[in-house]
């Protein structure tokens, strides 16, 4: 194993703690938040090196209650209510990782991650490279992101692109409870820093089946939500659900067969799946709820333009938030700002009739 440990760290084991409160194996529908909660708990049970830290993750169980019950089960050494200091949270998580632990740091809202950008971009992302593989930094950073919950400018941001722009990081965005599980397990087991972004609107809204047992989703593999032949929508996060609505509506109206790709992993990006779909349908809509310029939508559109040029029947079209500091509080303003099924459907109609 290439990984670096300064002294022998306790090994992964499933015997650490008795399993309490097991989910019935046939649990049909789990909410997105429960899938995260359960997986995180199971990972902590399975591996003593995993610990969580962040503001209000202990006594309060997280402001969204993702870590409810953790303090009681794992104790305050592995469930750390930190001081209010994001750079300190990530900086010390890096130190913990350098000394044999597998920290999962929570940033309360992605909107508050900025003070930690130095630690994330200049440190975590560059430790392996700058040391020529002598050190590694296996941390997971969880953060709720996204809009549509009246969170206004500072509880709604989608700034994943700045991390996708940063080599050395991995960035994942589950859109289903199953992926929430599979991607979180993979992220925690990954030997590099992973940002794990949770769309906060999905926490209780989105439910679905969650495979039991050791279910892993590899990073860098997109998910084809539905196959189609006339046009492709590429998106991620909550927009997968909005796009699905839009696709259903437009399919019904026009009879078009729409392929929908959920990227799941923004970095590494599953270029092959995206490009293949573009070649197949010739028409691609790329959707993000983030601001448009230099966004993940820009990246995917540029990629397709480069690699599927000869197959395209229409311009690769982006639907993104306008270049306005996301996101106003008052409902009519928020609605005007937000990308939703209606806006996606409108763009899809134009694309199909191109």
């Amino acid at each position, binding site marked *: 194993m290439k990984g670096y440990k300064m002294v022998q760290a306790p090994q992964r084991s499933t015997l650490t703690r008795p399993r309490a409160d097991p989910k019935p194996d046939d649990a049909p529908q789990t909410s997105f938040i429960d899938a995260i909660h359960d997986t995180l708990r199971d990972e902590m049970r399975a591996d003593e090196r995993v610990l969580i830290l962040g503001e209000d993750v202990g006594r309060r169980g997280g402001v969204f209650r993702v870590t409810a019950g953790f303090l009681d089960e794992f104790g305050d050494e592995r469930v750390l209510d930190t001081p209010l200091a994001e750079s300190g949270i990530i900086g010390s998580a890096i130190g913990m990782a350098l000394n044999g632990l597998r920290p999962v740091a929570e940033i309360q809202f992605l909107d508050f991650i900025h003070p930690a950008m130095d630690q994330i971009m200049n440190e975590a992302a560059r430790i392996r490279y700058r040391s020529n593989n002598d050190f590694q930094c296996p941390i997971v950073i969880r953060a709720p992101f996204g809009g549509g919950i009246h969170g206004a400018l500072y509880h709604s941001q989608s700034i994943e692109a700045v991390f996708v722009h940063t080599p050395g990081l991995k960035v994942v965005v589950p859109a289903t409870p199953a992926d929430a599980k599979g991607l979180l397990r993979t992220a925690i087991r990954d030997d590099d820093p992973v940002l794990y972004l949770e769309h906060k609107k999905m926490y209780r809204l989105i439910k679905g089946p969650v495979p039991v047992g050791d279910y892993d989703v590899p990073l860098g593999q997109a998910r084809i939500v539905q196959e189609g032949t006339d046009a492709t929508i590429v998106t991620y996060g909550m927009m997968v659900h909005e796009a699905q609505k839009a696709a259903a509506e437009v399919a019904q109206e026009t009879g078009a067969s729409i392929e929908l790709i959920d990227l799941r992993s923004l970095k590494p990006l599953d270029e092959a799946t995206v490009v293949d779909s573009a070649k197949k349908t010739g028409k691609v809509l790329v959707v993000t709820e983030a601001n448009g310029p230099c966004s993940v939508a820009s990246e995917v559109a540029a990629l397709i333009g480069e690699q599927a040029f000869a197959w395209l029947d229409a311009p690769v079209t982006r639907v993104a938030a306008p270049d*306005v500091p996301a996101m106003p509080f008052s409902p009519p303003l928020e609605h005007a700002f937000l990308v939703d099924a209606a806006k996606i459907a409108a763009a899809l109609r134009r694309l199909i009739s191109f």
Partner: protein
Amino acid sequence: MATETTSAPDKAVQGAFEAGSTTPTNGVSPVHLPLHQGGGTVQTLSATVEPPSTGDAGLSHDSLRELYSYVALARALDERMWQLNRAGRAPFVVSGQGHEAAQVGAAFALDRDKDVVLPYYRDLALSLVFGLTAEDVMMAALARAPDPTSGARQMPAHYGSAARRIITGSSPVATQIPHATGIAYAAKLRGTGQVALTCFGEGGASKGDFHEACNFAGVHKLPVIFFCENNHYAISVPRALQMAIEHVADRAEGYGFPGVIVDGTDLLAVHGAVKAAAERARRGEGPTLVEAKVYRFHPHTSDDDDRAYRSPDEVKAWKAHDGLARFETRLRDIGALDDERLAALKTRINAEVDAATDAAEQAPFPDPATFDRHVYAEP
């Protein structure tokens, strides 16, 4: 212990109390109220501890009643917002209840014609003193177009008004502290005679921005007051997990200026401490960190449930030291308030809050077509 002073006593700050006796006459200092902080390590106290206020602190009865009316108005408005929230008519409330006396004491110690305040989300009372009206606040609370603080773009409790020198704030904690330092620098360079006062919680004092701002202000002896409203919790995180020391004010020494601890439920004590700090600033002697010990009576916001981290007993004990009630008692004691005046005041305030609520509920939401305006200056 709590009255030990190891830093060289700051004459200017102490001087603020020459008008009154220094014998403690009022009740329990909030520092000694029950807090589930997990053990009381004995701390070295380097900050100056302000004595409790006594008498009228040299203020006229009219002034004292004006002070009181702001505390009472803030309380009434805040309560109304909670009612509206519970009734499903206000989406989100951040409460300042428990902090009002400290805020009003601080705000009144400034020159409201030129000084600058940089509030945080609990500073309803402070913002009212600086000129926001009940109607302004209610417009924001109900996300209506006339909201002068943000045009309903920000969540409620993001107070701001250029005309009133209340600086627009964001939600990220502590970012306003360096702004205060910069404002004070500009005031000094331009010779405006302004003092900047910025507010934040004890949680905010854990952030790098607090450190960088205090340090810079210390180097240049800037006319700025760092006003910490220490309510012992940052959402659920208790003081003892936020910092190893008991008093944020003890950090001031490390930046080369005095730290002062004051009972934030004692309006006049806060007023005196901030007045002394403002005078010090205007004399060119630099910043002061004033830490007011307070308690928030409500959950962190209307989205929070504080029962997970605070005991009902603790909340009750602190509510018994409500700055509003204490100030009322004081004013009655010295004859500045009586039942009749109080009743009249309550009537006026209720009417004001009712009118503000009605106005806001009847006001339109913003025009969606305006959502993308003012990202940049318009030509």
